[in-house]
């Protein structure tokens, strides 16, 4: 029986607006991502998709409720422990890739390794880049790589610390349609090969359609429905 790697229970998150008004963004009764799951989570712009990823990754704390990552209750951890858990258990892929511009492809992976519990391993970093087809671009800086290659570095970096889950926030939003399929293929294939669960947030139905399991945030986020 599969184990949940991400579990949310009674999670609420609201933001205070400049006028003093409070806007609820998340109101989720229960959300579960099983190990090795590959899920596309779609929703309209502003429906709370990114906030949900920030809450899952510990970047943002929920106002109430519980968040478990690989069995660890994130909401009970201090900030440093939460950071360490994020480094060890979660891999993040961003919409803008967010590679560190002053670092080479190899160093971008090594930087991620240096924040995890293990020691930075040059050989493993090179292997990861080779597995996404970049063995010939190890010493290139992001500006010297194509957009597709940058996204590959971002995927390799997300896998640096052998995470349990990869959280990808609109990974295809800033690339053309021709490359979208390549990125989704890369993510799904790599995660399947490495037994890593994948949660991709997207607003594009054609991207969501590529996943065997699709969820709409509006379906289980009462705040989004309420807003909607």
């Amino acid at each position, binding site marked *: 029986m599969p184990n949940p790697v991400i579990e949310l229970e009674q999670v609420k998150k609201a933001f205070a607006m400049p006028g003093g008004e409070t806007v609820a963004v998340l109101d989720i009764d229960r959300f579960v991502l099983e190990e090795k799951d590959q899920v596309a989570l779609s929703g309209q712009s502003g429906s709370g998709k990114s906030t949900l990823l920030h809450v899952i990754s510990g*970047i943002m704390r929920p106002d109430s409720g519980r968040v478990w990552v690989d069995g660890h209750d994130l909401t009970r951890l201090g900030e440093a422990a939460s*950071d*360490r858990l994020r480094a060890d258990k979660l891999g993040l892929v961003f919409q803008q890739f*967010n590679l*560190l511009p002053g670092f080479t492809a190899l160093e971008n992976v090594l930087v991620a390794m240096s*924040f*995890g519990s293990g020691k930075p391993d040059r050989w493993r970093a090179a292997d990861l880049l080779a597995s996404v087809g970049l063995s010939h671009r190890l010493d290139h800086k992001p500006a010297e790589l194509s957009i597709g290659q940058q996204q590959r570095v971002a995927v390799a970096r997300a896998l640096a610390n052998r995470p349990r889950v990869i959280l990808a*926030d609109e990974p295809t939003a800033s690339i053309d349609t021709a490359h979208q399929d390549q990125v989704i293929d890369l993510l799904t294939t790599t995660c399947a090969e490495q037994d890593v669960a994948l949660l991709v947030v997207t607003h594009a139905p054609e991207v969501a359609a590529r996943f065997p399991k699709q969820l709409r945030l509006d379906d289980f986020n009462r705040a989004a429905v309420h807003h909607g």
Partner: protein
Amino acid sequence: MSLFGIAWRNIRQRLLTSGLTALSLALGVALVVATLVIGNVVKQAFNSGSGLGYNLIVGSKGSPLQLVLNSVYLISKPIENISWGFYEEFLPASARADGVAGRFAGSVRTAVPICMGDYFKGFRVVGTNAAYFDGLTYGGGGASGFGRWLGRLVGRPPAGAAPKPFAFAAGRNFRNDEFFGGVLGAEVAANLGLDAGDLFAPTHGADDGLVHDPFTVTGVLTRTDTPVDRGVYVNMEGFYLQEGHAKPVEAAADAAAATPAAQASAADGHAPLPREQREVTAILVETVSLPGLPAELTAMGLRTAINEGRDGQAAEPIREISVLLQLFVRPLELLLLLITTLVVIVSAIGILVSMVGSSLERTRDVAVMRALGARRSHVLATVLIEAVLLAVGGGLVGWALGHVIVAAIGPLITTNAGVSASLLSSAPAAELLLVPFLIALAILAALLPALAAYRTDVAKWLG
């Protein structure tokens, strides 16, 4: 990748900004180092003078400080002369033509006359007798610990604290009957490329003055790290025979009545100048230790006795040097300290401006690193390490540059202040303090941008 590696990458990423920050810091540090070293060299030079092997200087009435500056450091304006007769009061019976011991002879171990007023290519010429190098000693000052260490590193013998007899790197001391013999200080010989056997002709009153008869270098002294290194020492008998050096005698005292002062004529047949026509600029006196009394007390008594008379004054070099340090060197040090403090503050502001500027650029990077799992302490440390690397890098370049500046302006300092400054001159205590000081300064300056990085709102920057 270590935090050190990340910080180093950040520096390389902003190479121009980082380079300019380090350069501005390097220039500040260079100025600080040059100022500190020159200040220390001046102080050391004065301290080294206090280690000369005499404890009293007798000269004409006037400023005792000027007497010391002239006689010990070979700088300042020339002073008036004292009579030969007064000099003879310090001599034992055996050294006097009349066979009677001088008034002060009982308190004196060695009395060395010096005559000044001539120059040789920018260096002061001192007329004296063989006792200067045979009877006096030097030491008790010179290089500090760090300087000695550097000295050993480059194979230069350090100046010791115990009094030492003068030694010759080449040749020997002149004999009293070698009227035209001379001895060169180590720096003079090195600067002018002269060696034993070479000839040199001093000039009268200034470098462009009347050219005197040539003297032969009988010896070159080993380095003493004292003002002696910068002196040209000639036999005073030859000195007296030069034009303008004989005191005009009154009509009544004609040449026939004149009494020979030197005990022997020159080996080459020159007749010595009669005693009535002689004067000396100063007498370097080493006092004896009377039974039950230290030499210092004898010197004090002798000084009082001389100063009560009308013939001249006596000054204790150590006392005058101490006054000099209090009056001039300490205020100079304070001024230098003020300048260096201002320079350092400007440098700190430079680091702060640079780090604040780069912190705005780096905010997104910090947010990304935090999202990858970096702790707040990681980003704080990275910014601080970056600042320290810039400070230490800029500081080291500035340190080297400071010494190059000292070496470059060394000849100018020597000419104007009579103090020797080179690439190896140092202010060890202050220079060693500079490193931790720079690190502390860098941390202080980078604290604000480091805290900004520490507080970066990850969610906001990741959108």
